[in-house]
């Protein structure tokens, strides 16, 4: 592999052109040439000829390719912006072309499972921490890249696309990854913070999706702001305890990726997770809701994984547990709410 200094500036790679991937590609393209990866040839052709990806406008500075090798060769820094369900597979296709000099930042708020062949979440039922992988752990496991970071925070794609002001956090054990991410992304409209607790930030982004579904459900039931305040505050406590059990620090939950993102998602009709909860409360079944969505609501899978994790952890997480029963065991939302209102949360704050 030759990494000789070529005079041509390197591209920044973006893998995945979903709504968030497209927005990030555009932000990056303001400063550097960008190369995006898409699996389908027609998507690539669309980007290269008309600078749009399934309706989303892309900067002229963005080119596309279906070839992982070309991306890895042209880019030193890669942003993985793909749903957690396909994450492992995509990372594996890139793995043969990645080298230790690559910097990888991902923006996926989901979890993967590390199970033996033939096992799945239906068969194992109980999951230990060692069987759960955050996205950065997937990258470290599957590739030789070590300088890995993640991108999380209150970043609704629609608002970012409109150029509204926002902030994000880049978390990595490596200062250089944070600095690189900041210099690539920061603009007048986009503030970028750093955090060294990558697991804590990833977990915060993942767990907030659970609370977002619950928040949608409250809205769907026609409940007001008091109920929402209650949910956000109790949801945060639950995130802190779960986050701790999964290896993150309390501080990260308090930050942009935790509370910041939680408040945004719990108030936003743009959020897919919120929509799931909202429609559930309106009486739709999970299957019909999923059939209507064109992108994944990560929260559903997260609820399932965290429920299985709770079986092995010495911990109660009432919101998650009841949401699981609503989603997968046909518990009525009203019954779940009733249960939560009676749940003995005596102490307001028990984590500091």
């Amino acid at each position: 592999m030759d990494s000789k200094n070529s005079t041509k500036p390197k591209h920044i790679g973006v893998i995945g052109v979903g709504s968030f991937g497209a927005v990030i590609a555009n932000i990056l393209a303001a400063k550097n040439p960008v190369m995006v990866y898409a699996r389908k040839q027609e998507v690539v052709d669309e980007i290269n000829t008309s600078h749009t990806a399934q309706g989303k406008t892309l900067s002229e500075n963005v080119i596309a390719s279906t070839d992982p090798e070309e991306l890895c060769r042209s880019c030193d820094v890669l942003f993985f912006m793909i749903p957690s369900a396909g994450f492992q597979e995509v990372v594996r296709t890139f793995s043969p072309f990645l080298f230790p000099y690559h910097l990888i930042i991902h923006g996926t708020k989901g979890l993967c499972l590390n199970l033996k062949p033939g096992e799945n979440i239906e068969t194992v039922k109980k999951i230990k921490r060692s069987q759960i992988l955050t996205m950065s752990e997937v990258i470290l496991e599957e590739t030789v890249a070590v300088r890995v970071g993640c991108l999380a925070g209150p970043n609704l794609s629609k608002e970012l696309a409109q150029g509204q002001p926002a902030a994000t956090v880049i978390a990595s054990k490596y200062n250089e990854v944070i600095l690189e991410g900041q210099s690539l992304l920061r603009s007048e409209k986009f503030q970028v913070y750093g955090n060294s607790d990558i697991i804590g930030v990833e977990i915060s982004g993942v767990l907030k999706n659970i609370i977002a579904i619950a928040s949608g459900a409250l809205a769907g039931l026609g409940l007001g702001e008091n109920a929402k305040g209650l949910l956000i505050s109790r949801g945060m406590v639950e995130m802190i305890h779960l986050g701790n059990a999964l290896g993150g620090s309390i501080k990260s939950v308090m930050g942009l990726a935790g509370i910041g993102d939680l408040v945004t998602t719990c108030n936003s009709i743009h959020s897919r997770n919120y929509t799931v909860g909202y429609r559930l409360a309106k009486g739709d079944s999970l299957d019909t809701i999923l059939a209507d969505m064109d992108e994944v609501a990560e929260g559903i899978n997260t609820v399932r994984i965290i429920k299985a994790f709770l079986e092995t952890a010495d911990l109660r997480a009432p919101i998650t547990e009841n949401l699981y029963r609503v989603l997968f065991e046909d518990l009525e939302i009203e019954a779940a709410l009733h249960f939560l209102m009676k749940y003995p949360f005596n102490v307001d704050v028990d984590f500091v």
Partner: protein
Amino acid sequence: MEEKYIKHKYEPIHPSKDEWPVVKLARERKEFVKKVADLSEDRILNLTSNNPDILKEELETTLYREKLRIKQNPWVVDPDDDGSFWSGVKSSLVQISTENGRSKVKKLQEYKAVLNQITARYAEEIASNFKATHYKFTRSVVTYGFSRLLNAARVKGFRSIFSKKYSLQDKIQITGETDQLRDLATKGTVVMVPTHFSNLDSILIGWVISVLGLPPFIYGAGLNLFNISIFAYFMNSLGAYKVDRRKKNLMYLETLKTYSKEAIQFGCHSLFFPGGTRSRSGMIESKLKLGLLSTAIEAQRANFENGINDISGKIFIVPVTINYHFVLEAPSLIRDHLSITGQERYYKENDEFSNSYKISKFLIKFFTKGSDISVSVGKAMDVLGNYVDKEGRSLDKKGRMINTRDYFVSEGKVSIDNQREEEYTNMLGKRIVEEFHKINRVFNSHLVAFVAFEMIKKQNRKLDLFDLLRLPEEDISIPYEDFKASCQLVLDRINELKTQGLINTAPHLSLDMDEIIKHGIENVGMYHAKRPIVQDEKGEIGTDDMSLLYFYHNRLTGYGLEKLY
């Protein structure tokens, strides 16, 4: 019981000792020490951001601690002028700070001069006094002396003392990737990282290195060992440099790191005990001292920076485990461990190896009775913990060739990033611990100690560790048949782990279970006055010393075997 090990006769990899890096280093000792002193000075100036006020504070802290050390904890090896040197430093510091009218630049220069005195003194103190002639002499004394003792003990009859039937290699089995180690030592620079249970380890490893035909490795030995004259002689002739654990000030630590890094860059094969000190609990080290390990990574990066991209500039990390039935210092180690875990407090170093007589007595016991030792050499890795192939090229988990240089590259160039290298050091530490567990060889004595302790623990579920260790020994008894069944259970699990490559076993573990238990009980902690495991006339298993049993049991922690109980 006799086991079949292949006894190799290894030819030296560098026939002429003039080619040994350590000899070259000894020849240039004076220049090298000066270089270390100057580079350490630069590092410290860098750390204090060239600010005279911060530098002054560091100097004063160092002075204060050194004065305290001289007063409270003096050792025989300390140089006679220790007191006067630090008094000199004190008066220089007083002079610089009291006299007015100095500019900042002038002050910095004066502080720098004091700093250089200190680093020069430390560098000189740390540097080894290797002499090739002493090395050869020591090696032949050790080998000859030990094999005479051994033969006297094992071969019957008057002439036994001259018998050549047994050599040291019957006593100490070397297994694992020895050929790779020899091969890589001719091509690049090797950093060997062994587990550390006993003070004997230093000598043992020194002997292993010479049996393998490798040139001497340099290594940091605790200065306390130089208090004992026999050890001092051995250490010096084995190329040891001195590490003084009493000195924890910035200047000392930086000088020490610089010494290690420069020696590796010079091409000297090195040896670190990454646990830092002997394992007090008897567990395989799970947290490593990363200070010296980081110098291997720094040296590797520096080689890349200097454009040495071929194998001659490559640094290989080779983990080694040393397995004993018996650790002489076990009683005091475990006592220390328990008092530290009980509460964090200062404890004094207390060694069975406190005088030459005790050591000689131990050595005679060791060689005349059957307590075998095995040394397993692990696969070589690069400084990021990737395995390397025959040609020393790094391979990723899928066997693809990768370039170690890439880890240090940012925007196409090798760059210095201390924070990055700190993380790399953590990663390497984790990898070494993983490898330790994989190459660890289970002995029958480890098995019986583990099972006995876990069974006693199970019988007394309600007690915490400290109460458990205080159980009256006469109350403890395990029926033999239960014990045997339990040993089988654990051994089956160990064999399962072995097929997954997560642990290794000594060949004697394939014997019949009754045999394993019999030899295990005979072997475990065999020379202690109080035996960790005893068997009464009915065959029931008990112990004379719970703490010792705990120590020997700990060797098998870290594999999840406790879960079988």
